[in-house]
């Protein structure tokens, strides 16, 4: 299964729980030790983690690194799936494909998430943010910023973009939560995946009969009709976009609010000069690194020399986004929030051909939502000192965030 020499020194066990606002102490120790370090999973398998920024970018752009989870020897942390189950769930899931197969699917979507297209969506995102804040201000205090703002904003935006009925959100949001918490229960994650796929299968079938003016409708008209895209692949692409459009911004937004409330000086600067928001969002993405390793499981398909170490063909490799984004070689005083820092080269969206397709949508959502929220509710503050962090979840966030004003 793996050719990694177990050596004599005890290996760090992995994953390691993060501190709420930063990486675990083990990350700094491993990063000082070497740019790539061996770790042991709970089931005993051994793999490599990449700890430093430069090497993280190198690994994520190396064509000898595969993300094809259907490979028999792929060392996924969720592990243990039979190949038949994986293949069934794999159609259209280009996050788990290598070029050139990956590129065929990604290229069908690039124009939908281009800088121009996202710019055109900004007024709609701002209107949605204002409506949600209107409702929050009209409701009871304290309000839960996750349930009333952080989750509904990206959910409304992605549902409208894709053509998924927002009224049906309870079904796919609950299953998305099961899916992203796969660390605790792989079987439940597979069941959740199958249920969301079944829901989207039905939705895509309806769109094939009556394509609407939305992303799914356009793919039906432009790609299904021409035979470029199979029904199952369109379901898989829709699945990826729906999940990725939910559990990312929805976690970043409340965490960013809390982080800025803890840094009132920099929040005051942002209020005085809104042109600082784009830089602040990059810094928040860097310092929070909510996905850490979750989207960065890879496998070497040839021997790779890196940082004085040889990663052998067949070895599993995880890039630690949180460790790379806190690498002092790239970011002096990485634990200090600094909205003036040049943080745009962070790997919070990954790097290489799999870098987040929706990154510019995420940036727009965060910039607009944070600016509008702090403009509309200048005395916003947390209504608790005891926060429900998603400790141990593959994608970090807050289960809730009671706020008042």
């Amino acid at each position, binding site marked *: 299964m793996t050719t990694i020499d177990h050596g004599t020194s005890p290996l760090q066990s992995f994953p390691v729980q993060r501190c709420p606002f930063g990486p675990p102490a083990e990350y700094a120790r491993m990063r000082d030790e070497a740019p790539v370090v061996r770790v042991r999973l709970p089931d005993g398998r051994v793999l490599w983690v990449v700890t430093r920024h430069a090497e993280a970018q190198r690994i994520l752009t190396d064509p000898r690194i595969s993300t094809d989870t259907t490979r028999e020897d792929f060392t996924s942390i969720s592990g243990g799936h039979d190949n038949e189950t994986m293949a069934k769930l794999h159609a259209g899931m280009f996050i788990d494909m290598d070029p050139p197969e990956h590129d065929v699917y990604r290229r069908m979507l690039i124009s939908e998430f281009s*800088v121009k297209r996202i710019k055109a969506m900004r007024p709609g995102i701002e209107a949605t943010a204002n409506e949600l804040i209107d409702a929050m201000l009209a409701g009871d205090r304290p309000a839960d910023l996750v349930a009333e703002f952080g989750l509904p904003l990206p959910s409304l935006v992605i549902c409208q973009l894709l053509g998924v009925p927002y009224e049906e959100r309870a079904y796919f949001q609950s299953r998305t939560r099961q899916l992203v918490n796969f660390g605790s229960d792989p079987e439940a994650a597979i069941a959740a995946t199958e249920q969301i796929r079944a829901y989207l299968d039905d939705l895509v079938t309806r769109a094939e009969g009556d394509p609407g003016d939305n992303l799914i409708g356009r793919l039906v008209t432009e790609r299904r009709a021409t035979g470029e895209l199979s029904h199952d692949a369109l379901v898989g692409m829709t699945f990826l976009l729906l999940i990725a459009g939910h559990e990312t911004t929805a976690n970043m937004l409340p965490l960013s609010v809390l982080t800025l409330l803890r840094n009132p000086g920099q929040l005051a600067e942002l209020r005085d000069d809104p042109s600082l928001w784009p830089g602040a969002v990059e810094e928040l993405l860097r310092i929070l690194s909510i996905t850490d390793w979750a989207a960065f499981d890879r496998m070497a398909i040839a021997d790779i020399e890196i940082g004085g170490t040889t990663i052998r063909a067949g070895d599993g490799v995880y890039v630690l986004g949180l460790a790379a984004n806190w690498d002092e070689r790239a970011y002096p005083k990485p634990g200090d929030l600094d909205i003036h820092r040049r943080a745009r080269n962070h790997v919070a969206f990954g790097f290489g051909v799999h870098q987040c397709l929706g*990154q510019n949508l995420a940036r727009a959502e965060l910039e607009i939502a944070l600016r509008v929220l702090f403009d509309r509710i200048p005395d916003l503050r947390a209504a608790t000192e005891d926060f429900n962090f998603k400790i141990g979840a593959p994608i970090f966030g807050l289960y809730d965030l009671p706020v008042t004003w």
Partner: protein
Amino acid sequence: MRIIADKHTCIGSGQCVLTAPDVFDSDDDGLVDVLDSEPDPAHEPSVREAVALCPSRALSLAVTAPDPRRAH
């Protein structure tokens, strides 16, 4: 300085468009369009940043021979 952009490698992240909007744009497919492949030296810092930020390594720079008409 001459900019070389490979549309086959481009993944449309838009980092170049955001970094040096006078030099890069995205086409109808969302892929890189170089507006000015030999931009004024004033753009060099932002162009270099765009090259470094490109996640798929689709951008590179070639050194151009000095223009003899500008020689002293």
